[in-house]
């Protein structure tokens, strides 16, 4: 899972793995691996989820962390346009290291804007990355909206 800093990567994983949420912000450094069993239609698979330190302009994501990844979630904060603009950069990084890994995009913090605005941004982002990303999701680590669906859908793509 990659994306700009403070987009909510750790919170999304925490919501998915522990079903918990905290508003306080603690920057992740390096990488932390979490495990979670994901029940698909006819099997249960174990996911190893890499929570990778958020990238900034001065410190991009360490490429070693992406080696061997079988799927990638790129997270953007729907309330911060600069994090949405960074999506392209992350897609290029992932494709250059692990080109066969399916990519999904998550627009997090959807609870902070109106439904109408969120749907519009979902539609625009889906259109922009139609070729490079499998799917774009709206999600909220705070409310839990879209979190399970996003991880399950990515697992399907990775196995499929």
């Amino acid at each position, binding site marked *: 899972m990659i994306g700009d800093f403070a987009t909510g990567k750790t919170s999304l994983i925490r919501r998915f793995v522990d079903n918990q949420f905290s508003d306080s*912000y*603690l920057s992740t*450094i390096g*990488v*932390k691996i979490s495990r979670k069993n994901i029940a698909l239609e006819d099997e249960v698979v174990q996911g190893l989820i890499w929570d990778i*330190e958020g990238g900034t302009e001065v410190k991009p994501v*360490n490429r070693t962390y992406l*080696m061997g990844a079988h799927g990638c979630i790129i997270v953007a904060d729907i309330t911060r346009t600069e994090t949405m603009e960074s999506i392209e950069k992350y897609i290029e990084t992932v494709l250059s290291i692990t080109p066969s890994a399916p990519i999904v995009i998550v627009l997090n913090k959807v609870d902070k804007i109106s439904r109408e605005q969120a749907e519009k941004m979902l539609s625009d982002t889906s259109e922009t990355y139609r070729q490079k990303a499998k799917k774009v999701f709206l999600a909220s680590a705070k409310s839990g909206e879209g979190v399970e669906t996003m991880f399950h859908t990515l697992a399907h793509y990775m196995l499929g």
Partner: protein
Amino acid sequence: MHIQEILNAINANHIYEYMVIDDTLKIIEYSDKAFKLCDVDAVECDNLNLTETVPELYGLEEEIEKIFKKERGTLELPYIVKGPGQYVDIHIHPGRCGGGEQNRYETVIILFENITAQAKMQQNLVQERNEKALLLREISGKNSQLKRFNEEMQTLVEEEIRKNREKQQILEIQSRHAQMGEMIGMITHQWKQPLSVISLIANLLKSRLEVDPLEKELFDKKLDDILMQVRHMDQTVLDFQNFFNPLKEKVFFTLFESIQSVARLIENAYRHKNISLKIKGDKTLSAYGYPNEFNQVLLSLLKNAKDAFMENPRDKMRISITIAQENDFACIRIEDNAGGIDEEVLDTIFDLYVTTKKEGSGLGLNLAKSMIEKNMQGKLEAENTENGARFSIWLPIFS
């Protein structure tokens, strides 16, 4: 250096924990605490597979194989979270050279370096940097909001100014129409006398013509009289025309002449009401501005004075106009003895819709102040005197 010597050195300095793997990724040697880092019980440590034990290396099998094959030197995975608040760097290095195969290592060493202290410092720095960036972004967002708000305010203010300007224009037109009505009344007064004189002369000439058609001298004189009356009427029309002819450029104009042209328009109406009007002071003094607007202001003030006298009649009703220079300004003072302005409204007398008259609209003085101060950069003030009111107009004498 032999591999065992390296491992001994690692053990001796207590910085690293290690695992040694063969080319099937099986862990064949390890330091005491290496498995503790990976949450694996020491009794279960035999024959474990590397990627099952160290999930951070899952998916990196191909890269590790490259190290065995000498296609890659090392592999580094920095800042790996191992346990609550525990950080390690994972370094993967070539180990022992192969027995028979020259192009392949027999073992690879995985070193775990505890970097918790360093990571905590790094965490603080990153936290501080990210929070600063978020704060800056928030400030920038607020600034944008403020800018948008200012722009909206600017648009609103411009819209209000435009509406006010339109309102002002409507007021000016209304006021002008009202003054035109007044003027027409004055012209009627002005023309009545010359018309009756002309009528008298014509009748006289007609009757004399019947007695002595050749009385040339008398005819000459009476015709001159008629011409004089016609000239007087013509002057009245001219004054009226000048009064309402909008002059768009500022000019120097002689105040005395301007005041006289207004006085001519009202003299009959004033005489009829027994109001005396005197013009005193510097007859040559010029001002810089719009003479027709000055005339309108003067007419408005004189009309107000007349109305004040009508509401408060007295034996000797006097209005005086004084022209004098005060520094870079010409000062015109219009003073009456009509009793003055109610002290309660004196401060607001120039405000829109403020009037002391029963039938007043409250437009005249507001418009007069606007013409003098905004259009001509002068000043218009009002005050009470012992017996009446005094309006003072200052107009610039230089362009």
